[in-house]
């Protein structure tokens, strides 16, 4: 009787072992992913597809050292944001400057001011010490900067999903009521040798928080 029952069991196990060969596991990201060996500037130059317009603008306004300032945080706008800005700045194609170098000095100075809106000179802002409550700091162009996290849903459970960072700058002059224009951060906490870099969303954010 025993022999018979054991025979049945081994048939069962033999045939049914669920082979999980169907799941091609690529594994997890190691936690060193967020570290970049090099300065913030070299990080931007290492990804031309996203930042080559930005790096040229920085160089033209020779703001490298502000960007590479020790212990600073840099919110990098992508090329598409600057592209949309230029479309707005020069609506009709005829008299749009052919190259960045051909941008008149006045406009270039204004763009330098915008670049400094993205630099937090003396503070390392990282995701871990932010929360859904606003926290504040000042930009290089001493405008008020505001940071907060927004949580998404997870499978229909409200506010239990991933959290992403929002970076907003107050555009109104000091005395008037504040108006913060927000931008979502799509790559957070890139630690370079000179500070921290966050990359802003490209399709809905226009360079200079227009």
């Amino acid at each position, binding site marked *: 009787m025993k022999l018979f029952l054991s025979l049945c069991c081994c048939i069962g196990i033999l*045939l*049914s072992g669920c082979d*999980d060969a169907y799941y091609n596991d690529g594994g997890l990201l190691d936690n060193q992913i967020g570290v970049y060996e090099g300065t913030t500037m070299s990080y931007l130059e290492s990804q031309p597809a996203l930042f080559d317009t930005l790096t040229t603008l920085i160089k033209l306004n020779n703001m490298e050292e502000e960007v590479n300032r020790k212990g600073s945080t840099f919110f990098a706008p*992508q090329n*598409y944001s600057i592209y949309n800005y230029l479309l707005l700045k020069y609506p009709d194609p005829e008299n749009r400057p052919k190259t960045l170098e051909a941008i008149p000095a006045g406009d270039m100075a204004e763009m330098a001011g915008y670049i400094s809106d993205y630099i937090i000179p003396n503070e390392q802002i990282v995701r871990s010490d932010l929360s859904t409550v606003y926290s504040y700091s000042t930009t290089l162009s001493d405008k008020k900067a505001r940071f907060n996290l927004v949580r998404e849903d997870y*499978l229909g459970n409200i506010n239990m999903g*991933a959290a992403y960072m929002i970076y907003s700058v107050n555009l109104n002059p000091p005395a008037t009521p504040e108006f913060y224009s927000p931008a979502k951060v799509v790559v957070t906490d890139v630690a370079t040798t000179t500070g921290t870099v966050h990359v802003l969303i490209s399709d809905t954010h226009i360079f200079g928080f227009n």
Partner: protein
Amino acid sequence: MKAIVKGIYFLFWMMTIPVLLMAQGVKSGKVVDQQGNAIVGATIKVKGTTRSAKTDDAGVFTLMLQQGDVIVTSSVGFKATERVYAATDRLLIELEENQSRIDDVVVVGYGSQTRKELTGAVSTLKMEEITENQVAESFESMMQGRVAGVNIQLNSGEPGATPNVIIRGLAAVSRDDGSAISEPLYVVDGVPIISRTSDEFAVTSTNVLADLNPSDIEEVTVLKDAYAAAIYGSRAANGVILITTKKGKRGKPQININSRTGINFVPRLLDVAGGQKEREQVARLYELYAPYGVAMPSMYTDVTNPFYNNSSDWQDYLYNTAVTQDYNASVRGAGDFGQYSVSLGYLDSEGILFNTGFKRYSTMTNTTFNALNNALVINNTLALSRTDQTRNPGNLSTNFSSLMPLPTNPMVAGTEVYGLGKNANVNDRIRFSSDVSWKIVNDLMYKVSLSLEYTRAMRDAFSQSRRTLWGTNESGVGENRNLLFQNTLNYTPRFGDGHSLSILVGQSAEKMESKVTNVSSVASAPLLSTSVKWPGENDIGTSNYGANTLLSYFSRVDYSFQQKYLLGASIRTDGSSKFGQANRWGLFPSVSAGWNFNKESLFADWEWLNNGKIRGSYGLSGTTWDENYLALGLMDGGSLDRYQSLLEITYGGIGGFTPTWYNGFKNEDLTWVKSQMGNIGLDLSLFNNKVEVVVDVYEKLTKGLLLTTALPTTSGYNEVYRNAADVLNRGVEFTLNTNLKSTRDFSWNMGLNFAYNKNRVVALPDGNADIIKISTSGQDFGSIVRSGAPLNGFFFYESQGIYQSEHEIPVDAKTGRRLVGLQNKKLAVGDRNFKDQNDDFIIDVDDRVLAGDPNPKWTGGWTNDFYYKGFSVNLVSTFVIGRDIVNTELLDRLRFGKDFAGTSSMPDFDRYSIWEKSGDQARYPTLNPWNDASQIVNYDSEYVEDGSYFKIKSATLAYTVPKLLLKRIPFDRVRVYCTVDNLVTFQNYSGPDAELVTPDGFDNSGGYPMRRMVLFGLSLGL
């Protein structure tokens, strides 16, 4: 005075006993079968005298016997034996099982015939052997591969799903022409039962026949050809399945208990790219194809976000082993008064997918009373059953992105994988039928039967979104009521030497009513209890009612001369309320003839030929359709839209009727579909019934198939129904059963059957013009019905590989325009290169060619039983050969829309050759999600695969405890067994299981694979 009487009495005995002893003694003996088990109810007769006796429960009998008497012992299912009685004998008579089933009594339409006199193509199947080993929700899945010509496919692994039964080839266009039923007619104990609810009235998707407990079924008979089926007239063209339920047998009351538990294991699942692999694949697609300015969702770019740093195998989490339990108990018995049979059944099979399962509670009582010494026989059957299929609220997808954390991950502790709510599907059925058969004169029998059947399907679904707290609440009740009233007169005289005649005249009236009430409400909390309440404040209800009636007169004459020459003819007229006024009545004649040639003198000395019969038949039977009022031209009062608003019903609060745009306008001459079927068969049983061969050749021409043809858009109507197409099915069926008994203890029974079927459309209206059906994904993908091609034939675009470079795209010399791709797309490098058949430089419907035929050429099964002492091994396998199918499951997963990233799991690209840069020799073209029209098309001849498979469906090892061990315990039959169900599949198809494919050849596994079950069972008989 008393003493004298006593004395005389004593004296008398003293005188008689020695005489008896000397002349003839009262003897007792026992009749047993080969395994030594007592045979109850065997008759022992002394040849040439009227002295006979029957064995009692223990197989013992007493009989007055004399020296030299010839004792004839016989019993149903055993071979009769003769022995000369010698006083010294120890009367232990062993009977050998009678393998020949020639003189078995076979149930046929409205009566029964001995197999010898059968002239139609009829196959029978004893369910006892099957239900002993296997557990399944529906008896159809147990019949798989056991009857030649009956092709049964299980399309989904979900417990309680409806299998697909096709007898002798497809005779209905199955794509979006739901009205023509290609289902066979199911008849239980002579009464047609509800086997499926039409889509219009379907409330639950559970298999309607799943509530018939297989353990209650004694025998299933399949009437395949016209003669056997025509007696059922306008619903029998697709075959008739007669189910006979178990009845009590004479002798000791048979009490049976059968309990088994099975473990369902998870089979092979869909391939998935996990964790980092998914990120690489998404990044690759964005890098290759994303237009300027479109960025990856932040879950892929934000690499430092801990929430998305996972590699979760969702299928492993959602599919896990489950338990199936099945308990059956029955008490049956018979005596002079009649017979009784009471059975109870409980099946609980959990699905391998979380939160799915199927429960069945069934009970059946069946009593027969013989009155006026067998002149009047009253049969009553009452069957109650309930099936409860639980499913997940809302549509649960099993393929979330592998970057999402599993619910077991601490980051999302306390979250629910499923939305709030439930989705319960409950089907109840009450069936009461009673018939009185009265033998007026010994050969004339009048039978009247009345049957009431009531099914009630209830669905309660409530699902609520946590974000908006808005819940949708749906309760539906669908009821079907069948009434059948039937009178038959049966006259079976025997006269002359060997002439026997059977004349049947009958009338039957049926009324089928169906009613559905659906109430749904949008509310913040579950409002509706299980019973349907009429609408409250913001509930909105709809209801629908349909009824159709059938009135039929039928008669059949069977004549046999010395069981050698057999003739049969039957005719039936059916009138139905569904048919148009113009032709309400249908006529269904059929004739058949048979010749048992082994009885001829010529073959007398072929002793290896125990039985041989040639039979032929020709007849007409019909199929009808679902809609009850199709021919009357129904008006449509509008229906609730998806948000329960009245936009389609009223304008400014005033509602009115519009024509039903889909069924076109009134059409008087719509009638049922006629099938003319011819059948020639050969039955042989050889080597004293050790080998049985049955061969059938048939041709079935189905005329006037119901088809919808499209109308111009300017008419406002979509389609109109017409009796349009004729379809021809030709085939051969072959069955071989052998049972070899080599030594006393070892025997081997083998049953092999296979059937060949060829299906072709032979005639179409409007001068055989193609009928192009518009499918849900656009004009270029509708099915095509073309004369000369098989039904459901694959009319695909002929693939010639992939455009590797610009100059490969043909340019029209005259106009300089490039070839326009499918769905008017501008072709580019990496797109699929379809052949432009008619050189008009545009790929459209005219460029489609026949690329495959999903109807299986060969279907069949092979069962083997080995018996050795108490042990027995049973192997059941089924196979399908010569079938083309398409793995649409994979194609759907490769067809990415513009927001594909992060919404679901990604297939593992390493397993497939996908085109990326020119020069790649790949099977799949570019997967560009931002393409104007996706290049992954189901109708691409590149993806046609061979759908043949050989599947060992179940393997059983059983041990029957021998009699002598049973002395101590109160049971007289104990059997222990272990079965593995869905053991292994041999196929060269890329999808998980070639059986999970719908009749039109597209993979329909829908993510619910077929489980593999290991079952342990114990069956006890008192």
